[in-house]
């Protein structure tokens, strides 16, 4: 099956007073119809910038976007703005992290959903409003006929996120990008929203890109996972591979830093030392090397050469960007990482 979404060598940089900031650097990934890709990384790792690029939302800004973003074979990046606009909200749409800020405070929820439907469908306002009610019902808002005329601030946090989802799905998009859709919500509501997304995905065969820093959410929903650090992908593979046998020291750090109910309560969590780098002064070589505990096993290469993204062994779909020899990596994983998982 051919890939519905292909991103090839995507780079996004922003000119600033301190020089060009490479927010996303040579990113490549693909996504099949009806599948979910989880993009995981810390703040500033380039997750959101990537998703905005897929929607073509950097057009008209100062950002420089290079590479290809193929959706059904059409390159979004080389397409003029007025053509991409017709695809936004229609072929691909997006839900945002903070639904309260992402919904217009002065228009009713129904008005905003109907507007998204109206812009891509030649229908009357009445039909569009009925569509809004139908979508609110579909995402589980009780009494949608009544709530359709409510303003965003009259909704609870979870309901607002549901309304965002209703808005994003009103035109049956083939691709849905969810940018940290559950971060601002209570844990119980988070689970409901994730369930809802999964149900809707099954129903409409939507491809989903789930942007998050929550590994639990990814483990539950995604098929593939892409780990990003300082604008680069550092590990890419199926969820099974990446979460069960992570190959990058950053991935090890992420997984061992999760507190576990079965763990020893007196044992300290293994946090990753240091802080994520500023994109203005990305460390030389492997951007992760100042925080990596295994630099001594490689030597100077870590700080001088950027490692390539390579399959962990020939033919594998599990890619990693690390200077460690694969045998050494296996060894470290088995002896130091696996026991604390």
């Amino acid at each position: 099956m051919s890939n519905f979404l292909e991103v090839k060598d995507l780079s996004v940089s922003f000119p600033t007073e301190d020089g060009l900031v490479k927010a996303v650097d040579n990113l490549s990934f693909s996504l099949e119809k009806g599948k979910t890709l989880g993009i995981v990384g810390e703040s500033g790792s380039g997750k959101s910038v990537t998703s905005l690029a897929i929607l073509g939302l950097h057009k008209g800004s100062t950002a420089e976007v290079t590479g290809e973003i193929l959706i059904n074979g059409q390159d979004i990046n080389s397409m003029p703005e007025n053509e991409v606009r017709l695809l936004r909200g229609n072929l691909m749409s997006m839900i945002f992290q903070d639904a309260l800020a992402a919904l217009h405070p002065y228009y009713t929820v129904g008005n905003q959903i109907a507007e998204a439907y109206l812009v891509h469908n030649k229908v009357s306002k009445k039909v569009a409003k009925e569509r809004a009610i139908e979508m609110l019902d579909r995402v589980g808002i009780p009494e949608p006929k009544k709530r359709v005329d409510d303003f965003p601030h009259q909704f609870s946090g979870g309901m607002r996120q549901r309304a965002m989802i209703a808005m994003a799905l009103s035109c049956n998009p083939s691709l849905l990008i969810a940018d940290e859709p559950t971060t601002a919500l209570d844990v119980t509501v988070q689970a409901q929203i994730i369930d809802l997304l999964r149900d809707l995905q099954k129903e409409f065969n939507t491809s989903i890109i789930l942007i998050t820093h929550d590994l639990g959410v990814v483990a539950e929903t995604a098929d593939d996972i892409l780990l990003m650090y300082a604008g680069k992908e550092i590990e890419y593979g199926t969820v099974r591979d990446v979460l069960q046998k992570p190959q990058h020291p950053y991935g090890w750090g992420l997984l061992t830093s999760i507190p576990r109910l079965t763990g020893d309560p007196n044992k300290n969590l293994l946090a990753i030392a240091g802080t994520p780098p500023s994109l203005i002064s990305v460390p030389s070589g492997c951007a992760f090397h100042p925080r990596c505990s295994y630099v001594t096993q490689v030597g100077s290469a870590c700080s001088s050469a950027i490692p390539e993204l390579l399959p962990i062994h020939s033919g594998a779909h599990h890619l990693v960007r690390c200077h460690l020899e694969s045998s050494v990596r296996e060894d470290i994983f088995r002896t130091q990482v696996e026991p604390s998982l």
Partner: protein
Amino acid sequence: MFSYLIRRVVSGVVVLGIVSAIVFGIFFILPADPARLSCGKTCSEELIVKIRHTLELDQTLPVQYGRFIKGIFVGRTYLGGTEAELNCSAPCLGYSFQTDQPVTALLKDRLPATASIAFGASILWLLIGLSSGIVSALRRGTWVDKMSQGVALGAASLQIYFVGLVLQFIFVNKLAWLPTPGYSSPFQYPLDWAKQMALPWITLAFLLSAIYSRLTRAGMIEIMGEDYVRTARAKGLSNRTINLKHTLRGAITPIVTVFGLDLGGLLGGAVITEYVFNIPGLGKLSTDAVSNLDLPVIIGTVMFSAFFIIIANILVDLLYAVLDPKVRIQ
């Protein structure tokens, strides 16, 4: 909502009461003797005593103030029970020392000219200020933006008496395209009215559109960075809809507030504009009254402006409820 309105009106009335007491108090504490001011050139001690009695200046200050307030609500009678009995029906603000005309009649007489200036100029400055502000915000950093904001800064720094006189010199004296500014009834002579008002409108709008342009630009730029504008783009809306519906709607509230207060302030008298163009409005009335120490007229004009500002404040608050659904629900 209704009880909120009642509360606002009541507090407005209280503020008006306080304003009247302060103005009344200040003017009667002044070393100038109202009776002497009212007396004119051929004045004798005898006459002054008589006038003092007629104007009830021989009463204590609280009594005078009480009668003044009573006059506003139910009217008052000077020299009751004598041949010279004078009935001043409500709302009575007394009589001008200068012309002996009732202050309320003077105010009523002068209001149309001031209202003409205020409404005409406000339409003009809203049109120019909002559109140039929007264009500046959308073309931020380009020469269009720099030029329009440069002009706005220049215009905001110039004074009405400078711009007004320059315009009058060019368009009235040199080119003779416009008649000398003044006021004629818009109902009887609409064309003359517009021609005579043109310069005051342009002069006032010149200054105020600069302020509104900068206000609109700043508001639009702030809202353009909001998440909900990004959502609007992600929906695939056209730039026109995004800018004029989503962004402008988010930025309009502070502009409406300032507009309401500016208009309310102007209705109380566009003092400098009226003075520069010699237009018989409330502003001219109050400056003339001040230079002649015509106390009843001063009190009347001050209270009248306070009245408009209070009304404008209440209307702005009500408008908030229309503009912001969060206020409406509460």
